[in-house]
């Protein structure tokens, strides 16, 4: 693999505290040098490096999505690891963490290893998140130590919350012992039966059963209370796809009290509100549901002030026949990998003036810290050469997808932030081309 010089770009590496013009020399799949503009030209010539001109572009660590559904094993008609990682690369991601609600559930080291095997033909790095309980049934803990050894980076029963107090405490305790965070899908399913959107005046008018704010915030509060009894352990709770102001406030208070709680927010939750359900648009149905404008504004404030640790897409591909059903029957979720940067730039940067460096942090070092991914999320010398080049102001239209599924409410949207290249371990993936298929 020949060396690559990335010249003339604006390097934003929040973990290293850099937001300035810098050149990068990549060699052997790692960052060989970071230097002032022009400083690396001689070294690059010496190594016959390929030169990528990055003038006017942002050079950032490759994005990390700690919440995706790649649907393999078992649901390859929705997505495969190959197709999902190509969609990820098109969106500037170089690492994705795959949730375990596959068929069968990823609750074993065998499946965890299977997902990472070269035969899956992943375009970027795939880090599995393993089930917290056998079959994600919420009853019997899986073998966290063995799962970690097989490559799992976190534990979660995503889609199925861990409701029992005792089993949640045990999960946090075992996670603490082996050094894995527990990711909770916070939903009190006892009170969300049949719910398909946010509970409120709009759900009443549409005649749809609603999911209350408390269904989320009560579980977050319960989990935080459990964590507070475990201060002497390194137990770490991560709240997945947080969607309400009330739950965000609970996380903010817990952080203030020094508890090890982190949270992520999805682009659709900070971009859209429940109004997007419109005339029962199934591309506006996900869990947690789109919320009120007040919740949306609270999430944006949390993204700005540091309460939110990461932007995560909850990329959830579904086949057309599944989304062409009655609203209440259609499965939850939308795809999100290809639009995460565009929506973040449009909503957070352009409309709400959150600095570009903070947005890059939420997509790189933020998620890396959540899951303790020490090799990802920064471009200091010696780290893997995982990076993305994009023009923050250049617009593009979301017309085609690399995902096997097209269930996005953002198809047809024109967004800022054109991705020019995604580089994984020094290998250049051009989103305009086949992405290394």
């Amino acid at each position: 693999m020949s060396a690559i010089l990335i010249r003339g770009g604006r390097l934003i590496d929040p973990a290293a505290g850099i937001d300035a013009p810098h050149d990068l020399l990549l060699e052997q799949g790692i960052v060989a040098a970071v230097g002032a503009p022009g400083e690396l030209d001689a070294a690059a010539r010496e190594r016959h490096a390929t030169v990528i001109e990055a003038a006017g572009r942002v050079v950032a660590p490759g994005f990390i999505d700690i919440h995706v559904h790649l649907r393999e094993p078992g649901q390859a008609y929705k997505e495969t690891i190959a197709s999902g990682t190509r969609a990820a690369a098109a969106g500037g991601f170089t690492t994705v963490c795959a949730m375990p609600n596959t068929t069968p559930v990823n609750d074993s080291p065998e499946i965890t290893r299977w997902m990472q095997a070269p035969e899956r033909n992943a375009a970027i790095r795939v880090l599995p998140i393993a089930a917290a309980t056998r079959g994600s049934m919420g009853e019997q803990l899986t073998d966290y130590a063995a799962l970690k050894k097989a490559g799992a980076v976190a534990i979660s029963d995503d889609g199925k919350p861990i409701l029992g107090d005792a089993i949640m405490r045990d999960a946090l305790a075992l996670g603490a012992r082996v050094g894995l965070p527990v990711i909770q899908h916070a939903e009190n399913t006892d009170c969300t039966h049949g719910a398909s959107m946010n509970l409120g005046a709009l759900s009443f008018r549409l005649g749809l059963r609603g999911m209350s704010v408390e269904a989320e915030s009560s579980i977050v509060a319960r989990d935080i209370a459990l964590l507070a009894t475990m201060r002497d352990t390194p137990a770490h709770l991560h709240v997945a796809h947080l969607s309400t102001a009330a739950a965000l406030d609970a996380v903010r208070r817990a952080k203030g009290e020094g508890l090890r709680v982190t949270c992520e927010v999805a682009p659709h939750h900070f971009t859209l509100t429940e109004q997007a359900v419109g005339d029962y648009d199934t591309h506006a149905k996900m869990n947690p549901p789109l919320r009120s404008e007040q919740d949306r504004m609270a999430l944006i404030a949390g993204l700005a002030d540091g309460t939110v640790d990461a932007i995560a897409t909850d990329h959830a591909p579904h086949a057309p026949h599944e989304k062409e059903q009655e609203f209440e029957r259609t499965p939850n979720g939308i795809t999100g990998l290809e639009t995460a940067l565009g929506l973040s730039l449009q909503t957070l940067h352009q409309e709400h003036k959150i600095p570009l460096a903070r947005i890059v942090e939420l997509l790189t070092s933020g998620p890396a810290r959540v899951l303790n991914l020490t090799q990802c999320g920064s471009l200091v010398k010696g780290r893997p050469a995982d990076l993305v080049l994009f023009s923050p102001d250049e617009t593009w239209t979301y017309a085609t997808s690399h995902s096997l599924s097209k269930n996005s409410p953002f198809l047809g949207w024109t967004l800022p932030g054109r991705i020019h290249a995604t580089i994984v371990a020094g290998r250049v993936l051009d989103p305009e081309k086949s992405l290394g298929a």
Partner: protein
Amino acid sequence: MKISANQPAAAASSQQTSSSFSWHPGSAISIGHFSLPDVDRILARAAKLEAMPVPRRAKLLQKRRVALLFYESSTRTRTSFELAAKSLGADTVLVSALSSSIEKGESLKDTGLTLRALGAECIILRHPNSGAPFLLARETGLPVLNAGDGMHEHPSQALLDLRTILSRIGRAQHTRPVARVPIDEKTLAGVTVTITGDILHSRVARSNALLLPRLGAQVVLCGPPELLPEMAADIGPGVSIERDFERALARSQVAMMLRIQKERLAGLQLDLARYIERYRLNGERLRRFAPEALVMHPGPMIRGLEITSDVADGPQSAITEQVHHGVAVRMALLARALGATAARSHRAATKARPA
């Protein structure tokens, strides 16, 4: 409707208009899609069709094909739509969930496309899922008449309820024919309509609460919190909540009673005996608190539960008149759905059909 319509604004937007035409304009899906002039035209047409000589009326939709697609059971609505279609000369075919390929798992989309391929020009849909008529209308391009979708709406019921109210109170003054009452924002000024019972699960309540206030009426929703959440008052202007049935009755010109939908009560803790004690409309309550009020019920009613027989069969009751008005209103909706514009788009749909 796609939410991509006008993004950046869509991000913060709170209002999405319901005037998207991704479905056939002859459809009747939500009462909110009808302007007051639309309502006026429909009621005028209903009166005209009702007064028309039967042989002439039977030529209006002669041999046009209307499908009744019923995923839920129904007596009134189904028969009413069927008689309305037949009296305009249309051929009707009934497809019900239990005796069709729906039972084998065929999707709503495929069922709709199949009916279209068989020549259906209009589909009347009753479905247990809210919003199902939008899906059917989008996928088939045919005019879809919503005969009740989940807990969402029942627009033809609201129109026939309005016709019933106008025939008995308001500017009609019991003398002039219904068609002469002009529909505008003052037509029901000073009229209070109390809707009592299982508001939460009622598509009739929603359609009426969205329609009647636009004509100047006050709509009072009445019932216990389990069946009437506070947020119901936010459905639109002119709608309020009164938990005390007798207080609500005392200010009402119309008392509309709803059935307790036992099949939808799973999980709700409702004390039926207490409900009957507080909310049943009986003769004594009616005499004491609303001796002049019109009594309505969309049916099916459970005598002895929400209403007693003396009231249901009494002089203040308009319950059978409601059923009667249903046929005229549904004739008007069918004529509108299959009118001149609809014929054009039917040809377009036929052309678009794969060979």
